[in-house]
């Protein structure tokens, strides 16, 4: 499927609509598939943002301190409806889980012996990881469209270092990020850098 071009974007929603979309994502977000789901809703379903804008927000959200998904949520809200959009998105996303996780903690002692519930939670969490893998695939397609070797190397190097080797994330990003940016930095005298 093609990315929505900027002119195809839908008009920005009301703060209430934006909040209600993120509220439901928050309530049903088991196991950390939130980024993939937010992407699916704001880019594909409602067309409030372009794919490129969203993906650059993901990179930003991961570099700025704080939980990735709340940062992403702030970025998405800001791009769609400015500072109020960011505030609304953050509170909408977090209000459901804040209340629900306390209820889960209260109930946990009573239900931890029911395997059916564990199977439900594990199954939903595994499926939610699929949403994130899908987002990784979209990012990879975008890197392919850059037609440069350096971004692909940066992607694979990050994945192998953090995912496979389990090296600590911060030093890995601090080393790869400058190299990756330097490789695509515009050279003086025109012409794109081909690393």
């Amino acid at each position, binding site marked *: 499927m093609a990315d929505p071009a900027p002119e195809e974007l839908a008009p920005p929603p009301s703060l209430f609509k934006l909040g209600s979309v993120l509220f439901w994502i928050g309530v049903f977000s088991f196991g950390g598939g939130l980024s993939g789901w937010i992407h699916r809703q704001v880019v594909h379903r409602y067309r409030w943002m372009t794919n490129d804008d969203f993906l650059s927000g993901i990179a930003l959200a991961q570099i700025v301190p704080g939980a990735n998904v709340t940062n992403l949520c702030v970025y998405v809200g800001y791009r769609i409806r400015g500072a109020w959009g960011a505030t609304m998105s953050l509170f909408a996303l977090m209000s459901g889980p804040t209340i629900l996780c306390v209820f889960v903690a209260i109930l946990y002692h009573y239900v931890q012996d029911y395997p059916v519930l564990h199977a439900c939670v594990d199954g939903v969490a595994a499926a939610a990881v699929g949403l994130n893998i899908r987002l990784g695939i979209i990012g990879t397609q975008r890197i392919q469209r850059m037609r440069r070797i350096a971004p692909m190397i940066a992607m694979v190097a990050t994945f192998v270092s953090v995912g496979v080797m389990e090296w600590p994330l911060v030093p890995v*990003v601090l080393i790869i990020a400058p190299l990756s940016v330097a490789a695509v930095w515009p050279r003086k005298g025109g012409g794109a850098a081909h690393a």
Partner: protein
Amino acid sequence: MRDDSSLSPYLALIMVFVPLSLVAIGGGPSIFAPIQKEAVDVHKWMSAREFIEIFAVARVAPGPGSMLGTLIGWKVAGWGGAIVATLALFIPSSILCLAVAKVWNRYRGREWHAALEMGLAPIGTGLMFAGAIAIFRMAEAGPLAWGLAIFVALMLTWRPRAHPFALLGIGALVFNLQLWLAHMGYLR
């Protein structure tokens, strides 16, 4: 080390979580270890066992893994503590993120902005895949979980508008089917 026993529990929660909020580079999991140290060793809000239990609850409850902070707040000072801890953990980093997003947005269209974006986006994508592995490793997931995640990813590639509820529901069904088959003795 420190003696915060004279502080109100709300103030103690704020003093623990606000600094951690601002150093959580790379996301919530990067501060799980310091959170444990503060909650168990420094403030003695709970035993190590209770911490692990809270960690498990944060994983099964909806929301980001950092809901761990919310639950610590709840243990320390009830609902008020839960809300204070959540705000202390998420507001500082969110304000910082909003400021960065504003600056980022102001220079949109510049050549160096495009280069930064092109250089950073692949790292985000690499971390996305790494995150999938990390989640499964933490959950000690088997081939069924992997297969299901890949099925969902392919499904969304084929039908981008498939509703997440349906896909998450399939996940719950498949895992219950496995449970039932195991119960009936078809699986070991």
